[in-house]
């Protein structure tokens, strides 16, 4: 029997989605304002996914009927795909409407006094932060690892293995396989490695194969970075 073709695969991705921040519970006013905005750029809002943020509203002690709110947004052709900053009751209502709940970096269970101190991050920064991936077991030949943030590997990476990261790659061991940093085009990404014997190294699509890598870079700590379109391998002293 031949190998089965893959049926599906989970991948991680980040999208930029507009967030509608609400300051009032006055549905009529919301409707009116929304109408004005949509009239300005009807094509932009048509069938656009949207996350609505009720945190400011809740802070002021207002509460809003989630299902009525969702109805209004849908009337304008918007597709609400998430709620943020809602309290337990609002989150529950949203989930009943099959609208996912996103967390803001503040916990709703904190007492009010603590809540005041927490600085709410800019929505843009919120979308772009991705955690560091840590690998502690050897990456074996044939294995692939993809990290959407930085990637830290404490074990050897074997020949025939492939590690990829949208950010930097740190390998505190021997790299014999392939390491590709900044795979989504981040030219500032770097590769740090304590024993570079790689088959291939790449930053933002600019690569060097093992033949082109000088053999005396192994067994010591080096960093790889991009200068123009050239990969520079440099000792870390």
């Amino acid at each position, binding site marked *: *029997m031949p190998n089965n073709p893959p049926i599906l695969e989970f991948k991680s991705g980040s999208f930029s989605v507009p967030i509608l921040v609400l300051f009032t519970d006055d549905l009529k006013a919301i409707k009116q304002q929304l109408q004005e905005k949509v009239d300005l750029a009807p094509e932009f809002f048509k069938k656009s996914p949207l996350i609505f943020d009720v945190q400011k509203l809740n802070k002021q002690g207002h509460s809003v009927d989630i299902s009525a709110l969702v109805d209004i947004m849908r009337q304008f052709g918007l597709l609400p795909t998430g709620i943020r900053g809602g309290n337990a009751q609002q989150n529950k209502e949203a989930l009943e409407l099959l609208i996912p709940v996103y967390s803001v970096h503040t916990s709703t269970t904190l007492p009010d006094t603590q809540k005041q101190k927490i600085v709410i991050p800019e929505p843009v920064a919120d979308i772009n932060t991705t955690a560091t991936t840590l690998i502690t*077991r*050897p*990456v*074996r*030949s*044939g*294995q692939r690892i993809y990290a959407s943030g930085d990637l830290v590997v404490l*074990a*050897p990476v*074997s*020949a*025939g*293995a492939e590690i990829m990261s949208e950010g930097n790659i740190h390998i505190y061991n*021997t790299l*014999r396989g392939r390491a590709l940093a900044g795979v989504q085009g981040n030219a500032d990404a770097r590769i740090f490695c304590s024993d570079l014997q790689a088959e291939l190294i790449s930053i933002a699509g600019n690569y060097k194969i093992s033949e082109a890598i000088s053999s005396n870079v192994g067994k010591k700590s080096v960093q790889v970075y991009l200068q123009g379109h050239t990969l520079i391998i440099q000792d870390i002293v």
Partner: protein
Amino acid sequence: MTRIIVVTSGKGGVGKTTTSAAIAMGVAQKGHKTAVIDFDVGLRNLDLIMGCERRVVYDIVNVIYGEATLNQALIRDKHCEQLYILPASQTRDKDALSQEGVGQILEELAAKDFEYVVCDSPAGIEKGAHLAMYFADDAFVVTNPEVASVRDSDRMLGILSSKSRRAEQGLEPIKEYLLLTRYSPERVRIGEMLSVADVQDILSLHLLGVIPESKSVLTASNSGMPVILDEKSDAGQAYADIVARYLGEDKPHRFIEEKKGLFGKFFGSK
């Protein structure tokens, strides 16, 4: 508790079946009730190495398809009564095996108080090899000291850590042990072979033992006697050491250094 051991390598011809037979015999001789299963459906060999080929009636595929009971298919070894062999089918191929079927056999063996089950994996990374390792608790990775074998072992280790039952269910990972077979210190010295250190450097794996290249392995295979029964041979002793180490004894490694001949003894050659 039954402990399931898979003897695997990725590459063919490195000594998986020889090792399976020797390990199973060694563990059984220490008084543990042991079964050894041949997963190489279509290329049945274990029965030859174990010297029971003339007593095979039913095989693992018959058991999976309900054409025979496990008791009917298990062959009791003639040297050691704690050891049982479940042969592979010669007339079918690996697709005749199923995960549920293999799982049921292993459960049944556990219910029969088997302490160790040794799964002799076929070469490759396809279905037979996959099923042989899927339920394993321990993996004996058999590697020859040459680059192709080392790379294939590395690939197999990747599969062990991502596609086994333990990996899928998020349990404690399979314990992996390195067995370096067909080792010849003389050939390492003249640079024809990778050294133990080279292989360990690449695979970063716990070394369970080194089996020296030995004529006794071929002789044993041809006569249907697991090589561990040949206590005079270096390969037999190496396997006995490995079994002892696996069962928790502390044995120093042997067969890594060159045997010094009479000339060497006098002059301390290296």
